[in-house]
Each structure stands twice: as structure tokens, then as C-alpha cells.
């Protein structure tokens, strides 16, 4: 052997020595018959068997359950030249050894082994088994897996409780699953009734029906720690079966060995008690208690939310009921007002109608007196009779207009397409040559949805009004034209003189109230060169018996524009006026348009 070979041999010997004495894993070598020919120090230490006691013995003798644990094929294959891996997940361990890692609770050391052929120049001499202790890693992994499972159950329970409209309904499903995952055999959920200081059983799992009956309801008085629990104290009871405390009599009857009771507290309100119990374990770990406390908190939040929702719902229902009552009242009063208005209209019609004949008689007799008895009466009497006649003429006009107004308000109405040009031309013609001479129409006018009789009445009243309130010494001139108004522009109406609807006006079916707000609107304008109306009077002129500020200088009943307003209202339209005193007026009538308007 030369020096190099010698050095190499020494190095190999040192390597083997290290494996034998210091390697941090077990090494077992066998011959082709699986008789142990090497057993390193690690193996001695963990098996308690010294090499001298093991060498020469068959592996199957040292580990009798190799066959049963399906480990022989690996050894056989290694003898055929293959390398084999023995994982802890599928086999647990290769050789049963006592675990040494601190805090690890496995019956045997968890191992991963590699079984390889011992070969030289294509010849197999035996097998070598290298064993690694993976107990600590597996223990940690189990803890992590358990933690993961708990996190999952927690997330699942949370999601279910938060999503549930009524968390009370799903508690059974949630808690049965929680109990199963956390290795508890029973759960109880009691809800607190503060009004009678009682707990009543809401749901339970893993309980005999007769046992449930025993705790269906109970008073706060039977819980000595009630005030502490109200503050959130978790009650943990262990080794219950060996206790003689009479307080745990029921728990012993139910077969509980350990249980934990979690108060369900939201804010400072106690909502109930949640209990999880085990019949197989004497203790409950702090980790489990913490987890159950968290689930209890979730449930309390969910229950509280449901309680608040319920209260809100009740309040909302009450509010709706109240609103409905108010609406009903408004509808009743509206109906009664309509009734009164109808009666008033009938009354005023009757009065006006019945007054006409006596007034005409009065007027006729006055005229007889003035014409036939002038010579027999003193001048003073004649003057009185003349004034009497003028008054009766005035009264006749008044009753006539009132009758007209009543008719406009009361008559049955049909609305149809109407060519304004035609109606305006006809109305002007009816007024005679004098009227026709002072009116200019900018044809064509639009077509609208309206009632012909009412439009004639409105146009006629406005024209007569314009002709009447002319400036002294100046011939009246009235210009008429029409234009389309955008429906959405109406809300921005700034006409200062727009007529505010009468305070007595009630919307009628077919009037503005139920018209299509997007339908086109048409305005028919009347511009005169008369005396104008002051800003204050503009808001009033359409009211009944209301007259312009200089009306005293002109004859009239104060009903003409009221008729216009009422007629427009009944056709689903509006009317208004713009004016500067001394500078004429611009009246407008706004109609519902039709699609074919020019």
C-alpha cells in the first residue's frame, strides 16, 4: 500500500468513525440476509441497545413488525440495487424508538428513513438504513395544522354568523360543526330574558331530550357568578365527574367531564350563555377556551346586530303605519274639501242664477221709471232711480260672469286636438270689427290639447281685457303668437307675474296633476299696449273678484281672468302675466301640446 492509498484508507476509516460515533442520525447496515453488521452510536443512544447486543441479529428479529408495516419490500428492493425512501407520513417510523424531543407527544419517534444498497463494483453486499428523527418537525406541523383548522372553523363560523339575517336560526349548524372540530361532544345556547331575569334554552347539540328539559329555563339566581359573567367572565369547569360540588350536579348527570361557559356580551348587554362540554376529556386547554370565547364574541355581535335590526324594523313599520294614517287623513280631508267646494259652486251658481231674474226686473222697472215717469218725479228721485238702474246693470253683469265662472268649474269636459289659429281667428271674428282692427296674429299658431269652448272663453276674456285697459287716447293694439316651451324648463320659470294657483284650487283628474311631464307644452301669448299691472297686482289678478290696481277707473266684475285661470286649470294648463306698469302686459296661456305641433 503506497502512502496515498494509506492516507485514503485512513480518511475512509475516519469517515466511518464519524458516522459511527457522531452522526446526528441513525445508521444501520446489514448483510444480504439482513443481519445487522453496523449499529451506530445514535442508534445505541435512542434504542437503548448497544451495538454488541445487536450485531449479528436479524433486522426482522429486532423489528418484528417490519412485514406487518409493509417495510419488507423496500429492504428487498434495496437488495436488488434500488434506493428507497420511507416517509413518516406513510409509515410513521422505521424502528420503534422513544421520542426525545421536548414537548412531543408521540408514542414513537417519527422517522424518515432511506434504505440503499451497499454496493461495490456492481455487487450488492447488503443494505444501509439511514434514519432521521423528524418528531419535532411533525409535532410542529400538527400544531400548525390544528391551528389552521381552527382558523378555518373560526372564519367559517364568523362568515356564517355575520351573513345570517337571523343568526339565531343558524346557531345549531354552526355550533355542531364547531363542537365536532374542537372535539366537544355537546353544546348549549341559552338566551337571556332581562325582563324576568331568566335564561331559556335556544338550541343544543349532543344532549338527551330529558336532559335538555332539565335546563330548558333557569333563573339568574342559580348562577352564583352571575354578576361576574355579566361582565364577561368565562367559566371553566374541569374534572367535573370527580367533584362533589352540588352546583355541578346537572353537569355530572349529563356526563360532562369538563365544560366551558362563555357569556355572550355586546357592549354592556348580556345576551345569553354559550356552553361547550366534553364527555371524554378532563380538561380544556386555554387555546380552546380562547377560540370558544372568540366564537362567543362573534355570536354576541351577530345577536346584537339582529336585535338592533329587529328594533329598527319595528320602528320603521310604526313609521310607515303613521305615514299611512297621515296620508289617509289628507285624502279624507281632500275629499271633504272637494265636496264643500262642489257644494259652494252649486250654491253660487244657484244664487247667481236665481238673482238674475229679480235683477233684470229691477233694471227693467228702473228704465220704465226713468223713461215713462220723468215728468212726474222730482229731479232728485230721477237721479236715485238712475243710480239704481246703473247698480242693477252692474249686478246683472256680475251674476252673468259668476254663472259663467260656475259653468267653467262645473261643466263636463272633453279635451281634444285643437288648432289655435282657427280658434283665435273665430273668437276675434265674434268680437266684431272693432276688436279685429286692433289684434294682430302671428300665424301659424300651434295645435294643442284643449276644449274648444273653454279656449274661446279664455281668448275672448283676454282680448276684452286688453281692449278695456287701454291707455286713454291711445288705440289698443294686441299681438298674439305661440311658442313651444320645454317641459323641463318649467321648473326654472321666472316669470314674475306668473299666476300662483288659487289657494282654493284642487287638482282634478285630467288637469295638470296627471299629465305627462315630458309632453311638449305650448304657450299662447297676448301682448297689449295698455296701462300694465303693478308687480304686486300681477300675483292676484287671476283670483276671483280681484282687480288690477287702477281697475276703479274701468268697469268690470273681477271675474273674467278668474274664469281664464279656472278654464286653463281644468284643461291641464296654466296661465300667467308679465307686465311693467304703464308699458302694457303680456298674458300667456300654457296648453298641453301634441306631437304634430308645427
Amino acid at each position, binding site marked *: 500500500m503506497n502512502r496515498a492509498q494509506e492516507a485514503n484508507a485512513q480518511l475512509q476509516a475516519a469517515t466511518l468513525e464519524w458516522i459511527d460515533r457522531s452522526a446526528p442520525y441513525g445508521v444501520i447496515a446489514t448483510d444480504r440476509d439482513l443481519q445487522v453488521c453496523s449499529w451506530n452510536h445514535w442508534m445505541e443512544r435512542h434504542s437503548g441497545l448497544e451495538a454488541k447486543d445487536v450485531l449479528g441479529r436479524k433486522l426482522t428479529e429486532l423489528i418484528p413488525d417490519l412485514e406487518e408495516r*409493509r417495510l419488507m*419490500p423496500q429492504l428487498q*428492493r434495496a437488495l*436488488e*440495487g*434500488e*434506493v*428507497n*425512501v*420511507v*416517509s*413518516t*407520513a*406513510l409509515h410513521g417510523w422505521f424502528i420503534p424508538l422513544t421520542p426525545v424531543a421536548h414537548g412531543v407527544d408521540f408514542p414513537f419517534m417519527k422517522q*424518515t428513513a*432511506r434504505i*440503499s*444498497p451497499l*454496493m461495490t463494483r*456492481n*455487487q*450488492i453486499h447488503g443494505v444501509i438504513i439511514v434514519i432521521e428523527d*423528524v418528531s419535532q*418537525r*411533525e409535532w410542529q*406541523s400538527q400544531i*400548525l*395544522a390544528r391551528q*389552521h*383548522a381552527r382558523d378555518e372553523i373560526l372564519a367559517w363560523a364568523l362568515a356564517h354568523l355575520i351573513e345570517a339575517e337571523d343568526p339565531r336560526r343558524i346557531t345549531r349548524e354552526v355550533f355542531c360543526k364547531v363542537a365536532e372540530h374542537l372535539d366537544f361532544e355537546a353544546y348549549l345556547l341559552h338566551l337571556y330574558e332581562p325582563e324576568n331575569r331568566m335564561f331559556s334554552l335556544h338550541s343544543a347539540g349532543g344532549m338527551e331530550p330529558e336532559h335538555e328539559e332539565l335546563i330548558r329555563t333557569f333563573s339568574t339566581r342559580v348562577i352564583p357568578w352571575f354578576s361576574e359573567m355579566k361582565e364577561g367572565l368565562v367559566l371553566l369547569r374541569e374534572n367535573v365527574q370527580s367533584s362533589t360540588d352540588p352546583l355541578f350536579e346537572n353537569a355530572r348527570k349529563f356526563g360532562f367531564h369538563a365544560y366551558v361557559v362563555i357569556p355572550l356580551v355586546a357592549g354592556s348587554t348580556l345576551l345569553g350563555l354559550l356552553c361547550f362540554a366534553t364527555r371524554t376529556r378532563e380538561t380544556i386547554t386555554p387555546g380552546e377556551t380562547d377560540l370558544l370565547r372568540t366564537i362567543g364574541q362573534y355570536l354576541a355581535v351577530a345577536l346584537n346586530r339582529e336585535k338592533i335590526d329587529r328594533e329598527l324594523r319595528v320602528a320603521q313599520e310604526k313609521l310607515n303605519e303613521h305615514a299611512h294614517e297621515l296620508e289617509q287623513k289628507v285624502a279624507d280631508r281632500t275629499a271633504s274639501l272637494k265636496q264643500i267646494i262642489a257644494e259652494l259652486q252649486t250654491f253660487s251658481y244657484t244664487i247667481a242664477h236665481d238673482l238674475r231674474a229679480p235683477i233684470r226686473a229691477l233694471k227693467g222697472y228702473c228704465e220704465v221709471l226713468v223713461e215713462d215717469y220723468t215728468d212726474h218725479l222730482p229731479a232728485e228721485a230721477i237721479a236715485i232711480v238712475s243710480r239704481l238702474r246703473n247698480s242693477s246693470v252692474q249686478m246683472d253683469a256680475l251674476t252673468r260672469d259668476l254663472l259663467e265662472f260656475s259653468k267653467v268649474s262645473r261643466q263636463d269636459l272633453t279635451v281634444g286636438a285643437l288648432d289655435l289659429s282657427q280658434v283665435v281667428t273665430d273668437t276675434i271674428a265674434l268680437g266684431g270689427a272693432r276688436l279685429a282692427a286692433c289684434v294682430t296674429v302671428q300665424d301659424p299658431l300651434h295645435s294643442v290639447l284643449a276644449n274648444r269652448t273653454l279656449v274661446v272663453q279664455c281668448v275672448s276674456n283676454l282680448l276684452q281685457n286688453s281692449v278695456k285697459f287701454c291707455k286713454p287716447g291711445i288705440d289698443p293694439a294686441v299681438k298674439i303668437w305661440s311658442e313651444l316651451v320645454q317641459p323641463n324648463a318649467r321648473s326654472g320659470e321666472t316669470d314674475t307675474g306668473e299666476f300662483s294657483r288659487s289657494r282654493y284650487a284642487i287638482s282634478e283628474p285630467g288637469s295638470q296633476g296627471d299629465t305627462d311631464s315630458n309632453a311638449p307644452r305650448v304657450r299662447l301669448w297676448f301682448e297689449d299696449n295698455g296701462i300694465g299691472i303693478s308687480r304686486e297686482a300681477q300675483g292676484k289678478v287671476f283670483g276671483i273678484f280681484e282687480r288690477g290696481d287702477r281697475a276703479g277707473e274701468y268697469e268690470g266684475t273681477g271675474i273674467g281672468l278668474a274664469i281664464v285661470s279656472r278654464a286653463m286649470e281644468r284643461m291641464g294648463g296654466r296661465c300667467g302675466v308679465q307686465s311693467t306698469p304703464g308699458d302694457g302686459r303680456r298674458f300667456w296661456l300654457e296648453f298641453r301640446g301634441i306631437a304634430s305641433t308645427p
Partner: protein
Amino acid sequence: MELSTSQQDTLTELINIGYARAAGALSDLTGHRITLAVPEVAIHEIEKITPLLQEVIDGEITSVNQFFGGSITGNAILLLDKSAALLLNRLLTDRPQAGTLDESAREVIIEVGNIVLNACLGVFGNLLQVQMSFSVPHLQVDDVEHIMRSIRIQDQTFRYAMMIHTRFHLRASDVSGYLVIILGMTSLERVLVELRRWEERELG
């Protein structure tokens, strides 16, 4: 490199023999009936194998890798995509499925991969009637490109890759993966020669 139909049939038959052995070993090990099937076998130049693998198996790959030596040398790799590796572990161990392979699960995949690789390589050993030696298998989790690159770096003489589509069937589920055997020119030629001889022998 194109294999003739008959070469392909012979190779598939041989691998199936090896897989039957592996399936038996896996069934014994787990107590579940497991079958292994070979839907497809092909040989490609090593440059082409990465894109071809990327077409069929993508993302984070779990690979079990074992060198072999003797009359022929090369590298055998079992590749499983992430979901296949997780499913295989769950089916074999009954442990709840986690989002990642923990150390224990990695060992299970190594053990299973080792059985399949051994069975497949054993076929070549028998074919060539030589004793082959194997390294201890190791596991690598990476994308296809990096896994294949690390193998090429280990030995530049590797020229060809045998790509074996492998399907595990157990407990009413299928788990699909790829077994890739990488060989040098000489080794492949020896395999093909022996393949022809075997064919002649078998067909008389």
C-alpha cells in the same frame, strides 16, 4: 428524434411492465388500489423538452429527481403540477388538503416518486441486463424551466429526453404527471439497440 411506431409500442409495453410493479408497490404501501397508466411515450432532443413540458404542465412544479449510473447514465425526474402533488398527497395520506406541501407531504411525494422512478429505471436495467446504481432521490419545487436548467447544468453531455406521460388512478381520482428520463447520446443508442433486440426476442 422520432421513434418508429414499433419502437414506441415496445417502449410503452416495457414501461407498463415497470409501472405495474410500481402500482403494486404503491397499493401495498397505502392499502388503496392504485393503477399507473402510460398514455404516451416520446423522445425529444433536450433543447425541445422544456417548451414541450411547459405546454402540458405549468406553474409551480414539484419534481422528484434521481440520478442513475452504471452502463447507462442519466437523470430521471417525475414532474407533478401543484394541484396534482397536493391531490396525490391527500389521496395517499388522508390528511386534509392544505394550500402548500409541507415537509411531511414532500417526503410522501419523494417516496412515491422514488417507487415510480425505480420501477421505470429497473425496466432499463433489466433490458440492458446490467446493475444500475441510483442516487437518493431529492425533491425540487420550481417552474419547468428552472428544474430542467438545473439538470442540464449538472451534466452537459445529456442530449435526449424520454417523456413519459404518467397517470395515477386511485380512489376514483386521476392524477396526471410526466416522467422524464434524460440520457446522453451513447446511453440512448444502447437503449435503442437493446430495445430492438428485446423486440426480436419477444417476437421470435
